[in-house]
């Protein structure tokens, strides 16, 4: 099976719930996955389907009831249902995945759309609709809870709720649709299985409330960063990532597309400010350990700027010939291999910090940028881009000014990109009433190699053709 397009075992996937929330799950064979109030399902039942499909959880009433009687302790456990592909009409109601709870886009066809609404009357206007709060609904919370316990399908529950709603027929068709969608978010038992793309992982973290951890990043800022940094499968990139590996995951996905078999030899070298790099989020990635080892290297700031010499390394450890190493016993053997690993890491540090020049510098750190970027940029090849992500414009501004006065950097610019989502319904197109703020900023420039100091002769003044223009424009008249 193609794990990039098909749901497969032992893979992390992202599950989209009716509440528009995301959940990352690992698909272990012969296990079940609980989605809380949205039900639970067997992993084996969804394996082999392509990504992007929506499944409904349903229950054969006999089975679940017999389960209950057998084991009373399991009463609070979410019963595991069977799954079937959700029919097209219902799925369409869920057409908007990334937006707030306040505006749920309506379906894109003639109204009424939902099967739940096919047999009810509606009103042309809401003229006769009187706000009577919860009194309009004759079902009590207890009764609804009971229905849920009885594992009725979401359609049955919603049908009953509509029937028990006194003024439902006074609502307009659009308003009815919204009502049904809102109820679905509560009672529907369906889920969509998606590939764990970098954007999906970001969305998952945002939903979880980890905005600070991901430095307020947005999909659009990350997309622009990848393009401006000219990320390619065979590039070697210097990277600082304070998001716990999200930025690295964005790079890897663009470079290799999740493919463990990729023949490309690009590398991401993560420079970290603590003793060890934090790439926690890569635990969700479906790259093999071997793949990550080959394509992601970590070096601390200290090792990067003050690498050990070969002599220093060899003074502390020299590997034994293979046969001798194999002959070692027990604790000695373990400690030998631990030290061998250390030795190899050190040799790698040497290699990564030597005369090697990188194909790009990509930074998302809260360290003071004017001190970090010019130093790291020493290791960047001429003509290669430098892109810094910052949550705040001001920190990038200070950096841009610093780089502007340094001839090794060409045309530092501060960029911002924002995505504005619309309610995407025919005849009712308008921007959503609320959207996420933030999204950060980017500083983009190119590493260049200044021409050697002009010979002394008679020349004292050096002006670049472009700085002539730019400085002229910048004179401030007071």
């Amino acid at each position: 099976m193609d794990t990039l397009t098909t749901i497969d075992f032992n893979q992390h996937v992202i599950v989209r719930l009716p509440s528009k929330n995301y959940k990352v799950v690992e698909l272990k064979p012969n296990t079940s996955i609980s989605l809380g109030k949205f039900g639970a399902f067997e992993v084996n039942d969804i394996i082999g389907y392509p990504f992007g499909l929506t499944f409904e959880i349903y229950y054969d009433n006999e089975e679940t009831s017999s389960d209950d009687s057998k084991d009373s302790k399991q009463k609070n456990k979410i019963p595991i249902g069977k799954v079937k592909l959700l029919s097209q009409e219902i799925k369409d109601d869920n057409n908007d995945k990334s937006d707030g709870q306040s505006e749920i886009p309506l379906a894109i066809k003639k109204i009424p759309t939902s099967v739940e609404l096919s047999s009810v009357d509606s009103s042309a206007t809401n003229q006769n609709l009187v706000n009577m709060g919860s009194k309009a609904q004759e079902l009590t919370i207890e009764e609804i809870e009971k229905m849920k316990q009885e594992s009725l399908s979401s359609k049955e529950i919603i049908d009953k709720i509509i029937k028990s709603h006194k003024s439902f027929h006074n609502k307009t068709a659009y308003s009815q649709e919204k009502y049904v969608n809102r109820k679905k978010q509560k009672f529907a038992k369906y889920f969509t299985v998606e590939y764990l793309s970098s954007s999906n992982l970001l969305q998952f973290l945002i939903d979880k409330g980890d905005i600070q951890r991901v430095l307020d990043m947005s999909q659009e800022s990350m997309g622009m960063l990848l393009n401006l940094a000219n990320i390619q499968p065979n590039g070697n990139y210097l990277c600082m990532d304070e998001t716990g590996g999200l930025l690295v995951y964005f790079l890897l996905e663009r470079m290799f597309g999740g493919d463990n078999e990729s023949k490309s030899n690009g590398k991401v070298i993560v420079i970290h400010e603590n003793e060890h790099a934090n790439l926690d989020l890569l635990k969700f990635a479906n790259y093999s350990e071997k793949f990550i080892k080959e394509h992601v290297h970590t070096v601390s700031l200290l090792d990067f700027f003050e690498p050990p010499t070969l002599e220093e390394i060899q003074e502390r450890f020299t590997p034994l010939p293979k046969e001798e190493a194999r002959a070692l016993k027990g604790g000695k053997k373990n400690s030998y291999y631990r030290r061998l690993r250390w030795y190899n890491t050190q040799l790698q540090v040497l290699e990564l910090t030597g005369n090697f020049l990188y194909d790009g510098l990509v930074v998302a750190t809260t360290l003071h940028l004017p001190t970090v970027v010019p130093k790291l940029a020493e290791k960047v090849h001429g003509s290669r881009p430098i892109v810094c992500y910052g949550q705040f414009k001001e920190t990038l501004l200070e950096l841009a000014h610093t780089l502007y006065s340094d001839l090794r950097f060409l045309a530092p610019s501060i960029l911002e990109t924002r995505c504005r989502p619309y309610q995407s319904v025919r005849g009712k197109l308008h921007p959503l009433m609320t959207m996420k703020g933030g999204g950060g900023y980017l500083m983009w420039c190119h590493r260049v190699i200044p021409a050697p100091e002009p010979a002394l002769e008679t020349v004292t003044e050096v002006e670049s053709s472009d700085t002539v223009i730019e400085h002229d424009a910048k004179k401030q008249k007071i």
Partner: protein
Amino acid sequence: MTANCFSGYKDLIKEGDLTLIWVSRDNIKPVRMQSEEIFNTRYGSFPHKDIIGKPYGSQIAIRTKGSNKFAFIHVLQPTPELWTLSLPHRTQIVYTPDSSYIMQRLNCSPHSRVIEAGTGSGSFSHAFARSVGHLFSFEFHQVRYEQALEEFKEHGLIDDNVTITHRDVCQDGFVIKKGDTTSYEFINGESAALLNANVVFLDLPAPWDAIPHLDSVIATDEKVGLCCFSPCIEQVDKTLEILGKHGWTDVEMVEIQGRQYESRRQMIRSLDDALERLRDIKKHKIQGVERRKRMFNNTVDSSDEKIEKRSEEGIPLTEKAKFNPFGKGSRIKEGDDNYKWKEVTKVETEIKSHTSYLTFAFKVINKSRSDEKVNEVLQSMNKQQKD
């Protein structure tokens, strides 16, 4: 075989290389290095032979004609984003904020097989080509097709991972057959190209006419992403209708707003300094009045300061320059070390307030699985566990 000059990384500038010469932000020129040629600017001439052999990113300096100043340029290796800035516009182009968002949202990677219609100025084609497995680009305008084909050949894209076809996709769909005007090279016995696209980008005036043709060329066993790029909201409305009819789901339209900021400085001018300056002016004014009074009364004696200065028109010149904390009356360069500055950002004077609406939709054609295959996998796994 022409090497793709947009992919991979080059160290030294070589004879025959396509370079981008950066003169200024809005003057970036594509130049192919030929040792006998000269690159001319209004500041002076840069012989290619002085550029060839230097590392990419090098600044090249010359002394300008008749002055003691130096002028310089930077020589860069082309990237799709720089290319977009330098582009000879054949049509309205898709700019980086839009193209980068589309690529990210459609999860572009070496795994992607992309359909693009139309090619236009080829700006987005370059960005796609850099990042995806294969790009199938369609252009219905004969001249633009030929120009784009020529350009893609020169850039080494055709020999790498780009196919361009002359086609009105709204009328004739996307299938590439033998005998079509296309850069596609058919392998022995092949009568039609296998596109199997999983990403589709439609930059067409009437995308609704093209959408029905997609089913025969998109991948059947995986989720396919589509983006329509339309400037008018009426186009979006029509597109939504047809997407619904043809089974595209998860439909969402968005708009991207890109902004670029200039880093600038504003002088910090304190209230105290402003007050002090006014006091200073006032003081000098009073002194002047008194002096004139004394002159009028003929009481000027030798001990008084110098004779009052008057301009040719007879207006007295005050010595207000004595306390001039803000450098009034002279042109101060932004950031002058003699003054205090606050770093500020200034948005471009003209912004692209609307490029186009981006309508995204997704489709899975074959929504089934092979139970047999799943069972096989399961059994082999269970067996492994037992062993």
